């Protein structure tokens, strides 16, 4: 009904927009990364692949490799993200499990409270913690009263001087966890909610204990949801610069995002910044497509079910 072009015409504005402001923008990164810079340290992009100058790209790869100046930042980013992901999963899974399977009458309210952080400005949520953890903040006072501060200092989780907000890796990891947890809980919830209660009952019927049924039925079935959720929050976490900036603002805790930000937006060398961005984007490309593929097959499975 209607020729094929009628409908495609509707898609045209969107396609044109995304081609220019997304695809072309991305190519600008490529062209600058494979480009050069002029005497004013401004980038000179090379649009034609045949002209590409691999100098800056190679330099960047060397920089993030062992011994290079970005190596520490690179490793630190991985460590932070790994810890934050683990903590998020540890906290998020039980919460999602509760919401999906045991909330009963309270399900609507619980879901609302879990979705709420989505719509609260991320920076406001960080601002709230800055307020609490500042030297005279409620949080700082509370934690030192109940002895946590002393405990952490002696366990070397907290550097002795400076307080919570000065260059503390622990604070950054907690902030990342806090910031991105809500974005993990919802995919986990969706995946757990989809599990057919009858499969669990069947397992119990066949003699499994509650713990057994969980580990042998529920957990494996929720695995795709776990992986998808982790990827979903890992992607922005790798590029995060504002969280370390807000809760730490020290080079001791800077992540790759901070490096990119300094090179590009703060202007010290856009070419190198573009190169580093490109490296990051390529590294994450695999994760991005994995996530897209996994949501598509989840949709297909849901449709046939």
């Amino acid at each position, binding site marked *: *009904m*209607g020729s*094929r072009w009628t*409908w*495609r*015409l*509707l*898609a*045209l*504005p*969107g*396609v044109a*927009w*995304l*081609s220019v*402001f*997304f*695809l*072309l*923008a991305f190519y*600008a*990164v490529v*062209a*600058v990364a494979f480009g050069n810079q002029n005497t004013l340290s401004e*980038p000179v992009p090379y649009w034609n692949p045949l002209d590409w100058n691999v100098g800056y790209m190679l330099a960047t790869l060397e920089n993030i490799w062992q011994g290079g100046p970005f190596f520490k930042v690179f490793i630190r980013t991985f460590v932070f993200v790994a810890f934050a992901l683990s903590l998020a999963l540890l*906290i998020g899974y*039980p919460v999602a499990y*509760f*919401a999906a399977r*045991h909330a009963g009458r309270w399900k609507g309210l619980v879901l609302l409270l879990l979705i*709420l952080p989505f*719509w609260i*400005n991320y*920076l*406001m949520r960080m*601002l*709230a913690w800055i*307020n*609490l953890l*500042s030297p*005279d903040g*409620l949080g700082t006072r509370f934690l030192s009263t109940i002895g946590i501060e002393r405990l952490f200092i002696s366990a070397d989780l907290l550097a002795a001087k400076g307080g919570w*907000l000065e260059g503390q890796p622990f604070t950054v990891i907690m902030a990342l966890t*806090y910031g991105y947890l*809500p974005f993990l809980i919802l995919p986990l919830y969706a995946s757990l909610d989809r599990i057919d209660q009858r499969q669990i009952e069947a397992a119990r019927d066949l003699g499994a204990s*509650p713990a057994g049924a969980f580990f042998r039925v529920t957990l494996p079935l929720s695995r795709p949801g776990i992986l998808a959720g982790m990827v979903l929050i890992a*992607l922005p976490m*790798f*590029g*995060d610069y*504002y969280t370390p900036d807000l809760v730490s603002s020290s080079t001791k805790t800077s992540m790759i995002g901070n490096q*990119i*930000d300094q090179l590009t*937006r703060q202007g010290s060398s856009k070419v190198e*910044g*573009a190169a580093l*961005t490109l490296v990051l*984007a390529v590294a994450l490309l695999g994760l*991005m497509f994995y996530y*897209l593929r996994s949501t598509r097959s989840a949709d297909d499975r849901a449709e046939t079910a």
Partner: protein
Amino acid sequence: MSFLRNPWGKPRFLVLVTGLYIFWSLIPVALAVLFAFNDGRSRTTWQGFSTRWFTGASGSVFHDPALQGALKHTLFLGVVCVLVATPIGVALALGLQRWRGPGGGTVNTVMLLPLVTPEIVMGVALLLLFLQVLPFVGLGSTAQAIGQVTFTISYVVVIVRGRLVSIGKDYEEAAADLGAPPHDQLLRVLLPLLAPAIVASAAVVFAISLDDFVVTQYLSGDASTTTVSMLLYSSARAAPTPALNALATIALLITLATLGLAYLVYRRFATSDEAAAMAGVEV
């Protein structure tokens, strides 16, 4: 540990964890909102209730040009974003859903990519675009608006397309059968049926635009292009007054009100025709 094991009751351990999580998740923000109403300059010591940071004579959101400017600019960008992204997104959703032949999969992937691209990558890409490729536009409000539209289109498409799938093509065929040419099938039948989803996606776009940070910051120009998010970022570690909390609270209330309104509209219009659709289509 027998008190935790109760096969017919709710596992208390889970209730505990969930309760603690929700507390940990929301209380800090609640406190931040609370201190917006603090009578003194402190953001950490309660000095009594007051609305001075909202409407007071000096230093309040209503009277501080920097704060006011940020709020106005944020709302301006939000409105522009909705007005541009929603129609483009709806059209793209329709075009994608009915795409016949090759190319549809590629367009679909390109449409989904902004949803999974880390914001810093988008920020840098757009920054370079506006500096190197489109210098006549340059950085500033226009760039910020364009940047926000670019990644919010995808949200509109996903939301509208979901509704399109559940509507199916029966209604359009019926309209055609009764004599409606293709543009009327769209205007008289499809769009009215899509209206709840369009409203919902507009609200989502508005909320996302209001809260956006990275892209908006990257594409900002002079001080007049500061948004609430940017102001929160730059002032957070300085020694701001509770006016900052007040600003954040206002933005939060606007976001929640918009979403709440859209939810109500969606519920009212979607359930009645969803029921009819289900009764008819699920034969």
